[in-house]
């Protein structure tokens, strides 16, 4: 008998090839930050990596769990960051906390990366809104503009990336490591 063999473009394993549909493997465990409020990713103790075009990216690590106090304080910083005009940068100065709280919910749409997909695949926002991507997958991904407007570094499980869209238009993006992963931001 044959097994683990090529069959056109199908996998080599004959036993595998006969199965239709495939029995999915148990879902892989997601990133450590799954379910964690996105605001926690702005803790001052976390690495902030340089990004083009004023975007921000944040890494999640074990030490994050031990820094709830710092993270909560950082949440205030995030809510301010998403409310101010212009690109988000590490050089911005935080405003009074009470000014940020009222705008966070309306201006912080989030795209989740899971099972090698962006979800929701299409997000419609108003101009000036910041979108945050959270990698809840078990693999490395990027958020890369198809038009060259923005490009995240590699996002490990639990990492986030944010970008502020200032002008109306349609902004397609993809994962530079898995180009079959696509998404679109529509700015009204």
């Amino acid at each position, binding site marked *: *008998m*044959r*097994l*683990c*063999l*090529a*069959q*056109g*473009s*199908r*996998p*080599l*394993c004959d*036993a*595998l090839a*006969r*199965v239709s*549909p*495939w*029995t*999915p*493997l*148990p*879902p*892989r*465990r997601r990133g450590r930050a799954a379910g964690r409020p996105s605001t926690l990713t702005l803790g001052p103790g976390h690495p902030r990596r340089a990004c083009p075009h004023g975007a921000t990216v944040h890494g999640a690590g074990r030490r994050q769990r031990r820094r709830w106090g710092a993270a909560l304080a950082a949440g205030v910083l995030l809510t301010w960051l998403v409310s101010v005009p212009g690109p988000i940068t590490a050089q911005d100065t935080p405003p009074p906390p009470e000014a940020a709280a009222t705008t966070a919910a309306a201006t912080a749409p989030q795209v989740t990366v899971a*099972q*090698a*997909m962006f979800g929701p695949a299409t997000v419609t926002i108003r101009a000036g809104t910041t979108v945050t991507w959270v990698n809840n*997958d*078990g*693999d*490395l991904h*990027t958020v890369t503009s*198809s038009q060259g407007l923005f490009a995240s*570094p*590699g996002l*490990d*499980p639990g990492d986030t990336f944010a970008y502020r869209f200032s002008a109306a238009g349609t902004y*397609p*993006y*993809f994962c*530079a*490591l*898995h*180009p*079959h992963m*696509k998404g679109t931001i529509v700015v009204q």
Partner: protein
Amino acid sequence: MTDDTIRAPHDHIHDEPPAGGLTRRHALACMAWAGTGLVWTLAGGLLSSQTLGQAAAAQPAAGQPARGDFAFVQISDTHIGFKGEANPDVIATLHLAIAKINALQPAPAFLLHTGDLTHSQKAGSFDTLAEILKSVNTSQVFYVPGEHDVFLDGGTEFLTRYGHGTTGNGWQSFDYQGVHFIGLVNVLNFKAAGLGSLGPDQLGWLKNDVARLSSSTPLVVFTHIPLWAVYPTWGWVTEDGEQALGLLKRFGSVTVLNGHIHQILQKVEGQITFHTAMSTAFPQPAPGAASSPGPLKVPAEQLHQVLGIRDVRYVQGQHALALIEAPLG
């Protein structure tokens, strides 16, 4: 061009999958089979197989290859910098792979690294790999990039380190003991919904590179993403790979070595044989066996069975390449 499937001499899984579909156990069993010591011998475009023990017995003497014969090693997808459940210590498994290489008789003339040297191009990752590979008992390492090596900077750092003596964006060829080796780059120019691609410039270079060669010259082509359509749904294909293969059709022996998918798959098309390789870092699911590609966690005791290197031996005069899969455990 006809499609011929490679036939395995034996198996250790059931003839039929269980009712209701393939189980994880069967998928892993298949992967484990792929990592067993089996030699594929290419002679005149036809594959035959033998066990690792038989292959060793066929050698003139351990460590004493006949004049003109040589061996080389394919290593792939080292993913320095990866930290995840699929393998918490990719440095340790790389050291195990190097121990395997250094135990080979005869020693490999050189190594081919088929890409994804690093996981995310983090600072120091290339240095870490370079330092570790200094312990390999061989004279030279040839590299082609994976998408993980170029996605941040378009390949600038990779080419600075490994592009010396190459053409274009890292294309390279060299001759060794009558065999012509060709390294292709198919991970640049990724775009939305796109696939790996070689591009017209590289295809033009390839055409010129092989134009001077006799059709009897054995060819070994190494590149990261498979040149054949392994699983386009997951991007496991080079969109203009067929054009490259068309340039190689006239040759009597073409061996294509790829990485990227972290598992052994093999196929024959006419005189061309395709072989994807194990990673030293972590396995990935069989095509379509999971909702998406990515690091696959297997039971700890099985990890070393699905990681490994490939020992390739050439016997002069037979135009034959023997591929020996060497899992870490």
